[in-house]
């Protein structure tokens, strides 16, 4: 009984702030406070009028797409190498790739800034953010794809080879369709991570801010706060939709391969 109460309290503590987002996004008052004044779509209309926000959103979408594609591409290579081949220091290398998962993001951001600007002397741009986002997306991508690849029987590709297909065709015809749900899942999760990442983007963005960086900038203007709530509402819904799609594909992949579910993100 106490455990149940604890669990419910935990859930409220975790999600109540998120639930407040839509509440104030539709509240007809520029002040974020109870009691609520009335219902309005006004804050969403405001959003449509801010040109700089649109640029920031476009930027973020571009960065998130590129980060997801690159991280997943690299993840496919790493997961295949980790599950199919034996090589020296394999565990060490795989561990190293997973480290960004536990490194404080601010440390990563500062050190990347130092490396990019002081040592490599590169200008800050969307590409510097993409490079950094690939770094933090990789652990998630590899964790998902490792699961997809390790479910595969090694002799499947050999069987395709044995039946006359080239190595590449064997990969394309057999392995790829079987790990495709994992790939989609990895793309979606990397996309979501990159889209709402703030610290690294804040340090590494050049003249064009990403959406989270822009939102942070808005906070200096209290009258804009309800519009931020409206934007936050849209983002939460988008994130949930993407995660649900990712999980759907992960489960479908397992079912297709006739495997037991061993847990996932949802």
């Amino acid at each position, binding site marked *: 009984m106490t455990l149940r109460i604890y669990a419910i309290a935990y859930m409220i503590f975790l999600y109540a702030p998120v639930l407040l987002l839509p509440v104030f996004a539709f509240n007809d008052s520029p002040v974020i406070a109870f009691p609520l004044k009335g219902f309005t779509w006004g804050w969403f209309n405001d959003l449509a009028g801010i040109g700089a926000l649109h640029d920031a959103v476009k930027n973020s979408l571009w960065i998130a797409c590129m980060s997801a594609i690159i991280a997943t591409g690299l993840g496919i290579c790493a997961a295949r190498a980790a599950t199919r081949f034996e090589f020296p220091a394999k565990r060490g290398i795989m561990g190293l790739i997973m480290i960004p998962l536990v490194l404080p993001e601010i440390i990563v951001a500062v050190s990347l800034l130092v490396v990019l600007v002081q040592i490599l002397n590169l200008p800050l741009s969307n590409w510097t953010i993409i490079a950094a986002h690939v770094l933090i997306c990789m652990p998630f991508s590899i964790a998902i794809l490792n699961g997809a690849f390790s479910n595969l*029987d090694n002799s499947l590709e*050999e069987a395709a080879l044995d*039946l*006359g297909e080239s190595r590449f065709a064997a990969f394309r015809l*057999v392995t790829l*369709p*079987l790990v495709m749900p994992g790939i989609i899942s990895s793309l979606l999760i990397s996309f979501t991570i990159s889209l709402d990442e703030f610290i690294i983007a804040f340090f590494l963005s050049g003249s064009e801010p990403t959406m989270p960086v822009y939102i942070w900038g808005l906070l200096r203007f209290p009258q804009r706060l309800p519009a931020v709530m409206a934007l936050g509402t849209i983002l939460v819904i988008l994130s949930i939709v993407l995660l649900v799609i990712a999980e759907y594909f992960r489960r479908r992949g397992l079912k297709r391969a006739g495997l037991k579910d061993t847990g996932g993100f949802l």
Partner: protein
Amino acid sequence: MTALISLTGINKYYGDYHALRDVDLEIAEGEFFSLLGPSGCGKTTLLRTIAGFEDVTDGVVLIDGADMAGVAANLRPTNMVFQSYAIFPHLTVAQNVGFGLRKSGMSRSDKAQAVQDALEMVGLGGFGARAAHALSGGQRQRVALARALILKPKVLLLDEPLSALDKKLREQMQTELRRLQRQVGITFILVTHDQEEALIMSDRVAVMFEGRIAQLADPQTLYRRPLTRQVGDFIGVMNFLPAQFKPVGDLITADIAGLGQAELASEQCPAGPVTGGGAVGIRPEILSILFQGETTSQRETVGQVIERAYYGDMTYYDVRLDDVDAPVTISMKNLIDRPVLERDDRARVSWDPRALVGFSD
């Protein structure tokens, strides 16, 4: 007999590990050939060498006269049935079976017909549209067979294809595989650790230990005249009794613990004449227990039953022959008027000296 597959001086190393040692082997066209041995003996490695999944460190692999060095698995005239069957789970049964026809240049309807024929050959006529992951173990095995045979390979390689099936189904598939092999006339090479399976199915068997072929023979020779104690011990059950050998003319006289003196013909020492100390091997069915009043024209000795196992059709006795430490196993058919002895009963044992095999170790 023309050799379809010819292996000469095959050696294979994995780092320091010597997986195949000086393997020479010729396999004829249309032969049902088995590679038999305990796990880790190199039999699967040898099969994968023929399939093209493993390179040899040293040696020549010829298939139908063509050197296979540098020829990848997809270009070799071999097809394989994998131990896990490796059925593509995202395809239907028909798509699985037709997978190898993708590059054949056949028309759609020809392909569909070929798939249909292949499925019927393995007794899965109406299964084409089923999802592959919904099949039972025995059905997967049949799909794997149809998928490999549809390409009409020169050689079909089977890697422990029956080990995942339960006993009844395994026995049924053994007969069926044999029938299928006669029907298609393709050379089958079977890898198995099950000596009974190898004896039942094969024209010839290569017994392997530690990367080497210990004996290459037809099943009857293998069972009756094993070259070494190790082979005799691995194939079925064999009793070994210490013996002293002495050549006398063409024959070899053996002084055998528990049995006494016997003369062995030269073919009873398959590895060559034995002199001095060694052992005599004798199969459980060659020894028989004489029940009350029974007499024999064969030789006779006595011992004591120390254990018995009743199998329904047979009873297996462990009998300690007088003056011998280790017991021998004796199998007796359970006839209607034949009693079953109990532990500690005294037993008269008859044996036929013509069935003894002499070993130098």
